């Protein structure tokens, strides 16, 4: 694990799903959430690139296509920092289980393929906390293309890596771009202790593997019970909330 990303001291747990577009990770994350909620755990969900702070800017910039590899990277880091402090840390401190669809590893893979320095982008995210579990959904590139093209008519400009000028054809560009991202992910398996899931297998088989692994991770976890949520020290500490 990169020395800058430290293990968190909070009572909650952070579960991350990673993988290229079309790997099926979002479906798996959704199923894990459903299961955890049904088991009675407090669960929060957060998605890559979704904070209100930079959403409009990112949308506009992507539309006008004036992002450079560095501004692309910094914009996503800004979004991540904002979500870390509003959507990830508070529930973790409160003892919830946070499921994150993509985490810093997406930046480490994509931004490096776009041309930023691997060491620079890792240090950029030094403020991030180390997840308790990272599932990497590993899928052959052809399966991913097939899934993506089945779901929609056209590939998005940045998703296909068209900004890199790899190919004039969008599907070919996607193939080259995502293959390179795949290689970056593969390099991180050991570096960040990924749990690798064969994302070409059946959805329910993958989910079974996920739940087994999550159950193991939750052995020492104790969900906060009503009335036992940690109270922040301060003038209100010890007082009844009602």
């Amino acid at each position, binding site marked *: 694990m990169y020395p800058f990303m430290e293990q968190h001291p909070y009572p909650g747990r952070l579960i991350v799903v990673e993988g290229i577009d079309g790997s099926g990770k979002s479906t798996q994350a959704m199923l894990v959430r459903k299961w955890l909620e049904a088991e009675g755990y407090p669960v929060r969900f957060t998605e890559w690139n979704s904070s*209100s*702070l*930079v959403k*409009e*800017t990112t949308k506009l*910039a992507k539309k006008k296509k*004036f*992002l*450079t*590899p*560095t*501004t692309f990277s*910094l*914009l996503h*880091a*800004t979004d991540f*920092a*904002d979500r*870390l*402090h*509003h959507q990830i840390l508070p529930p973790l401190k409160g003892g919830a289980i946070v499921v994150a669809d993509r985490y810093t590893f997406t930046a480490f893979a994509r931004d490096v393929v*776009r*041309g*930023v*320095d691997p*060491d*620079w982008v890792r*240090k*950029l995210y*030094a*403020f991030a906390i180390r997840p308790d579990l990272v599932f990497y959904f590993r899928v052959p590139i052809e399966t991913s293309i097939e899934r993506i093209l089945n779901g929609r008519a056209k590939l998005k400009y940045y998703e296909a890596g068209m900004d890199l000028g790899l190919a004039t054809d969008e599907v070919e560009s996607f193939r080259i771009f995502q293959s390179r991202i795949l290689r970056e992910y593969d390099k991180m398996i050991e570096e960040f202790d990924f749990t690798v899931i064969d994302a070409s297998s059946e959805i329910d088989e993958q989910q079974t593997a996920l739940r087994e692994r999550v159950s193991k991770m939750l052995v020492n976890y104790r969900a906060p019970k009503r009335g036992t949520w940690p109270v922040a020290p301060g003038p209100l500490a010890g007082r009844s909330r009602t």
Partner: protein
Amino acid sequence: MAGGARTFGRPLPYLKLGRPKGKLIAIEGTDGVGRSTQIALLQQWLEVQGFPVMVTGWTRSNLMSRSIDAAKSGHALNRLTFSLLYATDFADRLENNIIPALRAGFVVLADRYIYTAMARDAVRGADPSWIRNVLGFALIPDLVCYLDIDLEHLNPRVLAAGGMNYWESGMDLRLGEDLFDSFSRYQTAMLHEFERMSKEFGFTVIDARRDIDAVQADLREAIAPIVVKKKAAKAVPA
């Protein structure tokens, strides 16, 4: 730039800098010290001499200015998102404005540079190595002029210019009960940090407590030899 463009840390791997013909001059100084006034006068002076000038201001990139304004006017920002918004803005201006202008032979006058970001992070207690890595791709300016002032002279200027605002007063740090107290403490810390950096980075320190003309004269004296090298045949009166 002398000896080719150099950066503070690792340069952007995908960008070949070469040896831009222009000059990068940063004017640093805390809020309200009179940077914009001085820069407007410098631009006029340089253009009259026949030098093409581009002025680039902090948080003024096409990409980010709206996000930053929106964020300041309500969104709950913390130090990190604040720094990252500024870093994104800076990267955008560096790649899309500053570097192209330097390549075209412009004198680029930067109203604030990365030192402002470093000072703001430092007074907010951040690990200094983080921001230095993030902004490591920044070009080292050919000259950094630091407009030096003390609180005693700064206060009346800021009040005359319309008063203290929330961020310039570091109100996010809760340093004082009201804007004035907070402004005083925050700016004291900022001035201290700038003073420390002026030694580390070799700023040309200009006493900005004096009137506009005196400060401008010193700035011209510092800048003249830098731009003259470029057009050796043409004398630039200071």
